[in-house]
């Protein structure tokens, strides 16, 4: 038999807007009707179900906030992703604001219900959410039991068995208003004088089906434990998205630090569950005025390193100028790769001399390149490669650092000396009194080496010489035979 644990969030609407603990009397409203009110508001006499007019007449300074179903769903999914570590069978119900977990299969892993439940409740408490739990064989029954004043552990008979009698007793005493069914059904039940579920249980189920429809018939069958309930299961999404909301807005970038850490920790857990590694970090800052700013960071780490990602994010954030107060910060990742399993040496050697290569060097290289690229443009990080081409400026290639590049094997036949410094563009040499002049006089030492190439495109005919500059440097210069002009092309450093 399955054990379904229901986690019910009675003030999800307030929690999703982080308003539950606000000292101000606050209520969440929808279509001018109060849906949830915080303790301060309840103390003023405001109850869920009151109309806006009633609520305001009771307490004119009431802070009314429109309900945001999207945020509620986000919060539930967020908790569901976290709860996925306790069970592979997780289901969420946004209407009831509950999460169902099948925990029978996880008892052995967590060494008993008590340990599992304490981990679970600690985790939810850490998220500062109000919650109640119920335990039963079917999700719907566990939902009703979550309204009882007993701990879920009470409904166990032995470490591996639930006490059916206690469950049925609790269900029977539950009022029909708690049943997850339509308002009409509840109204009809009331008019028939059925206040508690025990009275519903006494009626023949076929007549219930006829009167209230097939859904209700099945609901009762689930509660009586005559049928197994199948709910759509929740699976963590393939991409990662998480947000932090700030009720009053943040006006300082430094205040973001703890939230960045929090989001990165969530990402870390997300990646660990899937054995993936992210290739991107997409930060988005939403301003209170509705505008937003996004920062895209490419990463090249092979192992998730929270600290280095944090550093990169701060570097990128430094360049950003805040236009207004920040309402929320979100992190999303869509590009993932399979993470390589990293094995540490059992007997780690501290061999950090500068000539050693290996994995740790590559990892350090990835970290420092991510850092550098977050501040410099990618075209300012260049990797070199040599290529066999007659034309000197085509005999090399600059590629961006992320690209894979390999040099051609060097043509050993071509041995004329080449300069170590190459000018990015050949510079024109002036001629002063029959002498070559470029920041000083040049005297030819040897040459020429003729390069005549690319006659099929644009012909280049050059005679390269090595020349001594009056300041003592040795230059690589050429005479363009087509333009009849002299150029400096490099320096023998």
């Amino acid at each position, binding site marked *: 038999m399955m054990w379904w644990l229901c986690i019910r969030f009675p003030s999800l609407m307030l929690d999703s807007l982080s308003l539950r603990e606000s000292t101000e009397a606050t209520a969440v409203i929808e279509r001018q009707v109060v849906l949830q009110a915080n303790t301060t508001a309840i103390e003023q006499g405001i109850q869920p179900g009151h109309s806006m007019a009633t609520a305001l007449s009771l307490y004119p300074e009431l802070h009314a906030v429109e309900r945001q179903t999207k945020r509620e769903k986000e919060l539930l999914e967020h908790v569901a992703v976290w709860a996925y570590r306790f069970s592979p069978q997780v289901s969420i119900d946004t209407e009831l604001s509950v999460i169902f977990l099948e925990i029978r299969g996880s008892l052995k892993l967590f060494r008993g219900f008590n340990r599992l439940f304490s981990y679970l409740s600690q985790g939810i408490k850490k998220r500062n959410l109000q919650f109640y739990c119920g335990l039963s064989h079917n999700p719907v029954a566990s939902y009703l039991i979550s309204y009882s004043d007993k701990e879920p552990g009470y409904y166990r008979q032995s470490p591996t068995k639930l006490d059916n009698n206690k469950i049925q007793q609790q269900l029977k005493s539950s009022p029909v208003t708690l049943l997850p069914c339509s308002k009409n059904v509840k109204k009809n039940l009331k008019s028939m004088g059925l206040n508690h579920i025990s009275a519903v249980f006494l009626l023949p189920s076929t007549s219930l089906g006829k009167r209230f429809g097939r859904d209700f018939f099945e609901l009762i069958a689930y509660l009586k434990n005559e049928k197994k309930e199948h709910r759509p299961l929740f699976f963590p999404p393939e991409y990662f998205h998480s947000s932090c909301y700030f009720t009053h807005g943040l006006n300082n970038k430094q205040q973001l630090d703890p939230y960045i850490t929090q989001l990165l920790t969530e990402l870390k857990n997300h990646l660990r569950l899937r054995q993936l590694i992210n290739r991107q970090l997409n930060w988005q800052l939403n301003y209170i005025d509705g505008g937003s700013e996004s920062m895209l960071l490419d990463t090249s780490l092979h192992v998730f390193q929270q600290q280095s990602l944090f550093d990169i994010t701060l570097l990128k954030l430094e360049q950003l100028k805040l236009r207004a107060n920040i309402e929320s910060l979100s992190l999303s990742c869509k590009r993932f790769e399979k993470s390589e399993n990293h094995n540490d040496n059992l007997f780690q050697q501290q061999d950090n001399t*500068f000539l050693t290569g290996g994995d740790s060097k590559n990892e*350090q290289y990835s970290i420092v390149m991510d850092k550098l690229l977050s501040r410099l443009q990618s075209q300012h990080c260049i*990797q070199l490669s040599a290529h066999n081409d007659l034309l000197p400026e085509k005999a090399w290639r*600059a590629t961006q650092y992320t690209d894979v590049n390999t040099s051609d094997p060097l043509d050993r036949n071509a041995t004329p000396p080449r300069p*170590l*410094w190459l000018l990015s563009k050949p510079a024109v040499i002036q001629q002063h009194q029959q002498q070559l002049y470029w920041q000083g006089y040049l005297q030819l030492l040897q040459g020429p080496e003729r390069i005549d190439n690319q006659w099929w495109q644009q012909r280049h005919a050059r005679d390269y010489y090595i020349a001594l500059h009056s300041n003592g440097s040795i230059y690589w210069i050429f005479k363009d035979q087509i333009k009849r002009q002299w150029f400096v092309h490099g320096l023998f450093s």
Partner: protein
Amino acid sequence: MPSVEQLIQDSRLWRGKHYRDEHSQPSKNSISSGIAQLDQQLHWRGWPLHSSSELLCEHWGIGELSLLMPLLKQVSLKGRIAWINPPFIPYPPALSAQGVIPEQCLLLYPSKPDQWWAAEQALNSSAFAIVMTWFTQQASHATPYRRLQAAAEKGHCLHFNFCPLQSKQQSSPARLRMQLSTSVSQLAIEVLKQPGGWAGQRFAIPRPESLLFKQQPVQQWPVYHSTRPSYPVINDKVSCSAITDPPYPDKLREDQPFIHQTDSNYPTQPH
């Protein structure tokens, strides 16, 4: 309490000359530059490891890179080399001709305010074996250089800072400082500061001869007149002294350079 051996290993300890001469081998604190003349002049017999070295140049392209080439060749087999704001492009065919693997070289062009930061990051990371910097703007005080020296130590990295001669007067935390200038077909070096002993050494390293063949008019080509046959003629009973006396001059004289190009039609000066 550290032992005497431990104290001697400490790079900060200055030692008298007669203690030093016993250890003419490259010490643990240095790596051979690959140029015998240079190693000889340095007390540590090579470039000091994990620290900054400063090369003050009259201008770029006087042979400053050739000083590092043997080291770069050795390092590029395993380690990466960062070039920060080089004044020109390090030409990959020339690099690979000297045995340096171009793929191991990463060129970074940070903007003026970012260049110190980028250099520090590169040094700190221990991802690079060598970081070479050409700062487009010299710092007015020593703090940024001191940070780089500390980063090089932390990241176990060799740092070479190329700077103009004007910064000679400025104090520098670099372990090794050398002034490079050109003289006739040579690279003149003056050691301004070096670890392990006194500085002030002056010496010169010749530029590679392959570059310096001077082109001469055909009339001035060196012609070697041999009065004797080039080999001993047995039949004519040439004395054995012909074998002991070299038929050709041993060495070319400086004033009669060897002609590299056989084609003399090319002018020495443009027309």
